[in-house]
């Protein structure tokens, strides 16, 4: 038992932080916001130069191995810059394929996902129809769906792969509040769909990877809102004092730090519990998603308030964090839903 990062993990975190801080700049993110929400050059160098898109994919399948803790470090660093990347979709797809794909599916898609040549999205539908290898139905809220090449779709209990270019596939991108991760509606009319080998494993991997990714992004985002607001509070002077010297102001910053420290414990507890196959993994994942989403939303709201008027402008980055926080809150189960899952585990289990 040692709840601290190994040297290798600390190095991955430092590399990722440095990479995103240098490259995922506000200017580049804003360009990407006007172009489907993906900074393609950034994604290419993330995949090829850093080679970090293959975390969680075994080396023999072209990945770099490692586990959820290392993936969370990457997602945290990306979240800290609100980087406009298909990290969520590609990581979920890659983990689902590793967990439940056929050998042919792994060979077809994993190298392309790891190298960044293919972009993936995932979505869910309760009433889609699968018949004779064809899938029909509507799948809403597909993150970066408008840019996707591979659709990993959950239809009820089944998990199926659909190529975005296949006949019968219509993808409608939406103007989305968080422009760094725009959502799309996927409509399928008898589109060719390939079932994975193990539906349960693939769907489970989609969920777990999604929750860890969002929780870790939220952690990174929340820490960034705190860091940036602290810096501002030391520069801005009113009434002849740094505004960070006012107790009403600094107590709000302290409240942000209190939540963020817990969010950090939540992300790495959940990631580590998944990696170790701990029986706490389920409660840890629900805790992490709910707690980190709430923390980020609270912190991003405070960032706007504590910056005053400038924090409400388009020019300032505060709204990028605020909108990302909102989208994370709603995505893959809101906090009420995750807490209800925990309530069911602790209140409804047989005594």
């Amino acid at each position, binding site marked *: 038992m040692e709840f601290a990062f190994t040297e290798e993990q600390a190095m991955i975190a430092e590399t990722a932080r440095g990479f995103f801080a240098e490259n995922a700049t506000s200017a580049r993110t804003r360009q990407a916001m006007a172009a489907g929400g993906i900074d393609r050059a950034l994604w290419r160098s993330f995949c090829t130069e850093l080679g970090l898109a293959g975390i969680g994919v075994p080396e023999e399948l072209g990945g770099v191995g490692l586990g959820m803790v290392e993936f969370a470090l990457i997602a945290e660093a990306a979240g800290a810059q609100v980087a406009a990347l298909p990290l969520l979709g590609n990581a979920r797809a890659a983990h689902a394929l590793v967990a439940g794909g056929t050998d042919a599916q792994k060979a077809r898609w994993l190298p392309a996902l790891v190298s960044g040549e293919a972009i993936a999205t995932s979505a869910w539908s309760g009433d889609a129809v699968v018949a004779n290898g064809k899938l029909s139905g509507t799948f809403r809220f597909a993150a970066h769906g408008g840019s996707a090449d591979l659709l990993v779709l959950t239809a009820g209990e089944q998990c199926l792969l659909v190529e975005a270019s296949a006949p019968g596939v219509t993808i409608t991108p939406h103007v989305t509040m968080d422009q760094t991760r725009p959502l799309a509606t996927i409509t399928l009319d008898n589109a060719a769909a390939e079932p994975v080998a193990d539906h349960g494993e693939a769907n489970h991997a989609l969920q777990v990877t999604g929750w860890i990714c969002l929780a870790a992004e939220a952690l990174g985002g929340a820490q960034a809102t*705190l860091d940036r607001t602290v810096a501002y509070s030391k520069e801005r002077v009113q009434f002849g004092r740094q505004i960070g010297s006012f*107790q009403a102001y600094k*107590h709000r910053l302290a409240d942000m730090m209190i939540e963020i420290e817990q969010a950090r414990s939540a992300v790495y507890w959940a990631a580590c519990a998944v990696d170790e196959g701990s029986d706490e993994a389920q409660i840890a994942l629900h805790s992490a998603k709910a707690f980190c989403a709430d923390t980020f939303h609270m912190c991003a709201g405070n960032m706007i308030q504590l910056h005053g008027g400038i924090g409400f402008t388009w020019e300032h980055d505060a709204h990028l964090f605020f909108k990302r926080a909102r989208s994370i809150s709603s995505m893959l189960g809101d906090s009420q839903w995750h807490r209800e899952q925990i309530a069911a585990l602790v209140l409804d289990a047989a005594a």
Partner: protein
Amino acid sequence: MKLGFSAEDEAFRAECAQWLQAQMAGPFADIRGIPNLCDEIPRRKEWEQQLAADRWSCIGWPKAWGGRDATLAQQVIFAEEYARAGAPNRINHIGVELAGPTILAFGSDEQKARYLPGIAAGTQIWCQGYSEPGAGSDLANVKTRAVLDNGDWVVNGQKVWTSLAHYSDMIFVVARTEEGSKGPRGLSFLLMDMDQPGIDVRPIRQMNGEAEFNETFLTDARCPADAMLGAAGEGWKVAMALLAFERGVSTLGQQMQFRNELDAVIAAARANGKAADPVLRQRIAAAEIGLRLMRYGALRMLSGTDLAAIDGAALTYKIQWATWCRDLGELAMDVLGQEGELARGEEYRWPTLPNLYLFSRSDTIYGGTNQIQRNQIAERGLGLPREPRGQA
């Protein structure tokens, strides 16, 4: 990063669980799970001595001083099994978790030999003489004075909120030894015998009806010149190091008590049907999340770091647990409803959950109020400007 326990650790778990359960089923069954710190004091002193006799009292201490050199994992396991067995709150928590480690860190060999055996044996109960009527949040504003007289320190002043002083054998006192000094400078850290005519203890009845806290009056109270930890005038450093131990391994035992309290809330909700209320379900889930995150925050804080180092997890821990407890107390009363308003008998005394509700109002005050915690987090954790001091 690793959360699982090794096979060796699991063997340790089996060993301590077996011992604890045998004690709580057998010779100490009468004090199993008693909620109140002031109940059954003589029996609890016997329990301290039983723990010591089988070397379970201070397992994190070095073997040479009666401990087991237990690893962090073993201390986590012991805290878990201690609570699972329903063993009562440690009456000598302050001796074992605070005074002991501080003496180990700052004491001379002679001082260690003088004070540690009594703590390890469970025969000397300790209390903490920090706060004063004029030194609460502003702890460095200590007015209690100590002057040397014939090879003794002679101490005059008043301490307050001294937990369990009325049952304690020893007290550590922060006193001003440099005449005219102000703030943290000129303070010293003295180890004093409670059994002397110069020390007068008066219990303070609290809002829950109990009297765990006391006023402690020192009137020409004495201790030997060498009953001082650290050098004269450097007591603040020792006092602050002790507070770091308070945030250390001792939090693990405290958390297991929280676990038992949350389990009591969950049991009450299941028994009276409130477990079906969607709003209470959300709050119970939030309490569950908060408790788990406290555990992992503590493990982060303790894993591979210097205990005295103030990092983010350590700095935010006090306000986190205190606020969690207060919220749990409120949740408990909302679950219990009017049932929670009824005392357990003829006296104004309370079962676990209503007592938690009342007592937890102190959690966000003692050991640094939530407001002081936020100041410290902002100033030490975030580097914001310090609060200006008044002219007084």
